[in-house]
């Protein structure tokens, strides 16, 4: 069982990485949607800069999560894919259109119709994926995925269209917006654009307030619509949930006090804690109450091979990932290479 839990924790961490990093990228699309007025073009450019080098890498956390679930918990993967066919299909359409439109927009000339159209597709598609993943997650957490006599219930709208699931979908969306806004504040700081810092600070606070309101709604709904999650939370996730609330407050306070780097770290942390709380609340179920961790788990030979493969993979991956973020997300006050190139002494060789 230790092996099973180790793999499960790795997968859950990947889910968190996708939620935080991928979420901030989707949130960028949401702010692209709401960009208007004289600053709009500058905001869009900042969003484009923030996403450009990293969105494809951030997206792969999802791929890793899917193939990991397929390998380690094939029953869960199979049940989820069958029961949540519609929200997953819509989320995938969002992923495809977001990615493609982002690249298409980037290659189109400024101020052309095709750039405007693909920009719209990019921002609209960015809202689709978080919403439907959120609603699908809520369907799982609230025990709405039913398996009867070995057959998964395939009512197309079942589970993910309840008030609770729709609230969680909206919550996922607003959380992405918060993550993107705090990230864009730091990006704007790095490009020394004080106006955009203020603009995204305002947006982060608005999105934060909406997230809080949706949290309250979900909290009120959960005893009726997600009793298992509710009881699990009260039973064994209460300390974690309290910590989540405190970190959330901390994020809001540091945003208010203009401690932006701290705010970004805390916003990312609070997202991680939300997912950890969810996981702990529905323990020991993978898909409550149809699939438990132990009855979905692949045999030890598979899990061991996956663990070894993952260890080797991570040993290559994590340094590369660090390098990527170091190059693009660190402070680059002066682009040293470019200066060298402009300096005749260093090029005449």
């Amino acid at each position: 069982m230790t092996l099973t839990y180790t793999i499960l924790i790795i997968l859950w961490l990947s889910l968190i990485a996708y939620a935080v990093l991928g979420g901030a990228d989707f949130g960028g699309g949401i702010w692209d949607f709401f960009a208007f007025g004289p600053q709009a073009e500058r905001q869009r450019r900042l969003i484009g800069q923030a996403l450009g080098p990293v969105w494809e890498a951030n997206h792969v956390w999802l791929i890793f999560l899917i193939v990991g679930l397929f390998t380690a918990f094939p029953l869960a993967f199979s049940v989820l894919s069958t029961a949540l066919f519609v929200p997953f299909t819509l989320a995938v359409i969002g992923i495809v259109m977001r990615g493609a439109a982002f690249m298409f927009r980037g290659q189109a000339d400024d101020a052309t119709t095709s750039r405007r159209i693909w920009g719209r597709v990019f921002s609209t598609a960015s809202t689709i994926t978080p919403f439907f993943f959120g609603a699908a997650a809520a369907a799982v957490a609230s025990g709405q995925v039913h398996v009867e006599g070995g057959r998964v219930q395939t009512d197309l709208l079942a589970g993910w269209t309840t008030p609770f699931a729709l609230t969680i979908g909206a919550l996922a969306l607003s959380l992405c917006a918060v993550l993107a806004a705090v990230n864009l504040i730091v990006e704007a700081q790095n490009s020394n654009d004080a106006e955009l810092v203020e603009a995204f600070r305002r947006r982060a606070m608005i999105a934060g307030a909406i997230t809080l309101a949706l949290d309250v709604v979900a909290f009120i709904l959960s005893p009726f619509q997600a009793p298992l999650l509710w009881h699990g939370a009260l039973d064994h996730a209460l300390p974690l949930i309290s910590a989540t609330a405190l970190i959330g407050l901390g994020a809001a306070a540091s945003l208010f006090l203009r401690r932006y780097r701290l705010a970004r770290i805390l916003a990312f942390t609070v997202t991680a804690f939300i997912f950890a709380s969810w996981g702990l609340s529905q323990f020991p179920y993978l898909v409550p109450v149809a699939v438990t961790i132990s009855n979905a788990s692949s045999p030890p030979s598979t899990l061991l091979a996956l663990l070894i493969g993952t260890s080797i993979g991570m040993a290559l991956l994590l340094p590369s990932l660090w390098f990527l973020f170091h190059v693009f997300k660190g402070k680059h006050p002066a682009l040293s290479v470019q200066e060298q190139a402009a300096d005749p002494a260093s090029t005449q060789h």
Partner: protein
Amino acid sequence: MSDLLAARAQMGTSLAFHIIFASLGVGLPLLLCIAEGLALWHKDSGWMTLTRRWTKAFALLFAIGAVSGTILSFEIGLLWPTFTRFSGAIIGLPFALEGFAFFIEAIFLGLYLYGWERLSPRAHWLCSFPLWISGAASAWFIVSANSWMNTPVGFQITHGQVTGINPLQAILNPSTPYETTHMLLAAYVAAGFGVAAVYAVQILRGRREAYFRKGLLLAMALGAIAIPFQIFDGDLSARSLATLQPAKLAAMEGVFHTEQGAPIKIGGIVDDKTGQVLFALEIPDLLSILAKGDPHATITGLDAYAPQDRPDPFFVHPSFDGMVGSGFFLLFIGGVFWLLYFRRKRVVPENRLLLWAIVLSGPLSFLAIELGWMVTELGRQPWVIYGILRTQDAVTTTPGLDISFLVFTGIYVVLAITLTVLLLRLARSPLPKQEWPVLASSSDEEVETK
């Protein structure tokens, strides 16, 4: 449309779409690596301009490959949940390893695309190595999973339960060496001839700058080096089927009845009802010689299998012949090109007929990949896991699959049209007039506008 047919149509369309970008994702980074290496070595702005151009095109192609690959990773579960449930523990591992390889490719792509001014020229070039290495690795892993579907090993079934799972044995199943090599080489062949076709068009249009000749030369080098290996490997691959999957070989060659001294049938129309291949060119004994090295060897026909276990040769046979024919055409064109090049003392041949043939070889090399996958996939039917799980038993019970098929097909059409327009625009945009130092290390925007 039945749900099974809709699911197969959606999966097939998705794979046919994705494989184009996946192949370029494997092949183009190698071209980038060589071109940028030559640029840095010779301090040559022509090679560097090529690198810059290819990078722009590659950025688009890779993104489409990444998102269409995401569709596939979901579709395995959405369309074939019984398959995933059965096979996840056995063959999930190469998918996970492919995930890592793809992850590394995506990371270094970010560095490569956006790192021109943040990395030194040498560091930038070094980033192209993990790109092509992880590209090749991801192709290897994912094709090993497909190989397992053709020759499933690494597990036992006792009392209806899967036991004794050995994921390593599953990855290294008997088909893996043949299929993985064949696909990797196919990717290099297609990237080579695909890129060569672009420059052949430009030269035919009268563009005479050194830039176009360099593009044509490097691409033709990759394509022409890969194609003989590919044909040799294809022969090994087909021969392996005589023992591993005789039903598939029978479908490929239109062999309805088990016979000694089987002829090879080139082309023709397969008539399922009469069990004949009409209008085919027949060469006696050749199939027995090719498959088993003996003119009197027995070749298993489709009649050795129960009707419900036979693949339908109607598409498999012409697909196979189309693939092989394309391969030999590419070999011929590659050979003629290099023969002329060396006989004319290293001058790029500008014979119009040859250039037109190179233009044709671009699409043909991708057509060969599509047809090859048709052979592999349709030739495995009616099984999704050969001899273990039938395709009809693996499909989801979710209703409304035909709508899903239509929606995704619509998406692919929109993406394909937009991508084509953008790539054509990119090819037509004027070349930047640049001196070496600026090209080597500045952002793309500056190169275009300065």
